[in-house]
């Protein structure tokens, strides 16, 4: 049971304003990922939650109990917040064995010896490292150290588990294994998790919710699917997704009801219920806008499929990569990337037909860089969208 509410958190280092008015609610059982490029404040937020950093402004409650009230200079001690933290560097104590590392916190809690033994072994078993109990950290591989760090954090059964880029020091293969491991851990223990990463794949695959950070502010909080389908601004759209989203220049016209977007792909008319009306949209005049087109939303045919959204295109370049093929295409002067499953071969300058899904595209106001039309997620989109 743990619900964390951060409100109006501000943190300064000297004159550096590193966290700006952070508001974030983490519901009980959430796997909340703080995502963003390095230096955007996500680790600082995590450290504020842990109690290792004291913000100058704002409040935080854990299950409605105050943990931070900056105006009253009240900061609850980290150990009293019922949480534990896995550091990016693991921070295993090199002079203690695996067992001693995990038992340290329990000893401080004055747990009985037999109980410590049992609790530690349970944690080691959960992380499948019980055979290493008497080794020292430097006798373990990176992946094993990682497991010890997590075992140490979960041994005290924290209500809230904080993970600071825990996978960044592992090689690519181990990272995928540990992702699965962490996801399983979340399901099994039901612990609320706050997870910091700059890797969008980690964020998308593991989280129940993602908070996207930008220069000390939270720019968007959403589910992984929501974030992927409708990034709130051009930067977010550019950051999320691999390969990157295509930005297509277009001209928009909004009459207060429908939004019409003209590009080299053709003219699309979007109904009022898909328009994000709380954003700045010029009315009854043409304006520059940008279409967001995910590479996987482009279907390529060598014969005309006679679909209403078919456009003729030419192959610019072709990069087969085994399980998928990256295809660069041009329509008029517009160049964009598409991705196809499996190995596909095209000739350079070959003429192809592409089918697009206007309903699944995002529209951004070029001037503000903000999302003005929602896209539909694939599984919710109709055949014509």
């Amino acid at each position, binding site marked *: 049971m743990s619900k964390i509410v951060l409100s109006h958190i501000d943190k300064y280092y000297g004159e550096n304003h590193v966290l700006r008015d952070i508001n974030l609610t983490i519901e009980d059982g959430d796997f909340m990922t703080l995502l963003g490029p390095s230096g955007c404040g996500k680790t600082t937020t995590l450290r504020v939650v842990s109690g290792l950093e004291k913000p100058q402004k704002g409040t935080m409650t854990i299950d409605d109990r105050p943990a931070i009230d900056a105006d009253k200079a009240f900061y609850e001690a980290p150990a009293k917040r019922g949480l534990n933290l896995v550091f990016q560097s693991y921070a295993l104590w090199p002079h203690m064995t695996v067992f001693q590392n995990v038992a*340290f916190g329990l000893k401080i809690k004055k747990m009985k010896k037999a109980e410590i033994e049992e609790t530690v072994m349970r944690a080691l078993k959960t992380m499948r490292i019980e055979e290493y109990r008497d080794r020292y950290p430097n006798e373990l591989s990176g992946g094993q150290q990682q497991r010890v760090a997590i075992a140490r954090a979960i041994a005290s059964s924290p209500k809230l588990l904080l993970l600071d880029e825990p996978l960044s020091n592992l090689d690519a293969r181990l990272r995928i294994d540990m992702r699965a491991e962490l996801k399983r851990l979340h399901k099994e223990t039901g612990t609320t998790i706050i997870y910091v990463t700059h890797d969008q794949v980690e964020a998308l695959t593991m989280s129940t919710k993602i908070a996207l950070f930008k220069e000390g502010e939270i720019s968007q909080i959403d589910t992984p699917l929501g974030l992927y389908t409708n990034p709130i601004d051009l930067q977010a759209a550019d950051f999320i997704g691999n390969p990157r989203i295509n930005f297509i220049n277009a001209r928009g016209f909004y009459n207060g009801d429908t939004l019409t977007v003209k590009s080299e792909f053709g003219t699309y008319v979007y109904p009022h219920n898909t328009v994000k009306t709380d954003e700045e949209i010029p009315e009854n005049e043409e304006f520059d806008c940008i279409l967001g087109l995910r590479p996987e939303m482009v279907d390529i045919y060598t014969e005309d499929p006679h679909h209403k959204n078919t456009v003729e295109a030419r192959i610019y370049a072709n990069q087969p990569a085994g399980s998928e093929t990256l295809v660069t295409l041009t329509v008029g002067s517009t160049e964009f990337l598409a991705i196809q499953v499996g190995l596909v071969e095209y000739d350079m300058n070959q003429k192809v037909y592409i089918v697009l899904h206007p309903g699944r595209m995002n529209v951004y106001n070029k001037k503000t860089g903000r999302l003005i039309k929602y896209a539909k997620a694939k599984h919710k989109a109709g055949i014509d969208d």
Partner: protein
Amino acid sequence: MAKNRWKRPPMTKERLKNQIQNVIGNPFNVIVLITLLMLFIFIVIPLLTMVLNTFTVTRGSAEMARRVDPGVMPGDYSIWAWKFLFGSENFVSTGNMGLRGTQIYTNLLEPLFHSLTIGFFVTVISVPLGALMAWLLVRTDIPCKGLLSALILVPYMIPSWCKALSWLSVFRTPKYGGYYGLLTGLGIPVPEWLAYGPIAIILVMVLHYYAFSFIMVSGALRSINSELEEMGEIQGASKAQILKSITLPLVLPSILSATIMTISKSIGTYGVAARLGNTIQYFVMATKMKYFLESQQTAAVGYIFSMLMIALAAGTILINQKLIGTRKSYATIGGKGTRSNLIPLGSSKWPMLILLTVFIILAMFMPLFFLVMESFQIVPGKGYHLDNLSLYAWIGSLENAPNEQFNQSGLFRNVEFFRSLWNTVKLSILGSLITAVFGQFFGYITTRGRGKWYGNAVEQLIFIPYLMPGVAFAAIYYSLASNYIPSLVGSFMLILIVSVVKHFPFASRSGSSNMMQISVELEEAATINGAGFWRRILSIVIPLAKGGFLSGFLLSFISIAKELDLIAILMTNSENYTLSFLSFNYSKEAMPQVADAICIIIIAFILITNRIADRFGGNVSKSM
């Protein structure tokens, strides 16, 4: 990130209460507070007191003061000491000797000029010598490298005043030394200008202070990525061109630092200058200061000397920091390629090998040999045939002394020796233990408080003793004790305090390099798990800091055990003599053999402790 300051929220009762609790409830803050207070008491206050004492008339100096400033009474404030030194009548020449006939010349300018001459020549000889040896041993394929590298720093471990005693054992002339030296004993006349005075002092110091440039330059050379030099080779540069335009510029900052260190140290050295200069009235700043301090009447003038020496030393070090500061850290250490390819010396291999060998013989084997041999002689300078050799200086008893000039029993029958040995052991153990413990705390505070006001304040305060030559530093405490706490004068306590505080800069540096290796996250992980400050220190910091603590302890142990300059002016009570001072004292009397024997014991002691420290990752180059 935007730069706008955070506005402090209004102070409420609850906020105040919580803030006080946050500060007091954290033992770290309390420790920082105590540390700052302690540094203030032991460094800032003594310094200010000494400045004040140059303006104070004491009972001892009243008579002297009245000659300059009529009518002053003890306890009055007066600028008499300054007038005594700088008064206008001091600039009037007697006779027709020009500047040389003035008071200011004999009192101040001559010793200053002597100090600067010595500083200049020691630096000019020892810096290039040390740098060359560093280059040879680090970057070239010189033969016997392992052995040479092992031996090259041994001379530095022999205290400089021991080398001065050894010098005397060879060059002593009967006119001043009482005994013959080795050479006069062999019938070879030794000119006085060689035996005593500037040349002797400079040569002995060169055999000691080469180590600064050797240590600093070899450190810099080791950090240079050999790819940088190889790149020059690919571009077609010759060996000499590479040395001149790549290697040399990269080590230049370290050479400059070594230069400044050498100047500042050689100007401040007391023991060597006293031993080789005082006999012929050749005074330098340090010995002249001691001369003034010895008399109650002129102590205040001695304090002014101390201030001048501090200004001189601090000035050079601060200039160095200004000059080098920005250029100090070339990022020359790369991830790869740090394994350097050695430069083949070719035909100059053998001359260079001979140079190094001769240096090691001169700086290490000869001084040791002459000390050992003289300690066995019945009459110094009378040669090494068997009937002039005995173990008297070590184990003889006075009633059957073979030489009627002997006024002491041999070392191991000598009460004074055992007392001094005990004092030395007591001082070294207590001193280095206290120093090392404080050093770790200082290191902890400065690394954890890096960039915060208190971290900077501690760092700045601790740096102050480093700026002062040992004698001048001791003078500060002497002035404080003799004017305000007379019971401390000559006491073991005062010697201990001075030894500890003077070693703070080194101890804190070793402490912070130790603490730097303990990542903050290790402590934070413990905090999260519920460990408080003391628990963290006990379970995490201390176990991890053990090795570094031990090597820091052993290195300050060595340094305190061999220290002479620092404590010489505090030795007013023979009850508290240490081995170094006892040896220094004996060498002035008719018993150079016993002085030599004590030297040998100290050297053996240093070499052994150093070996142990080496085991724990300590290194003599860290104790500079």
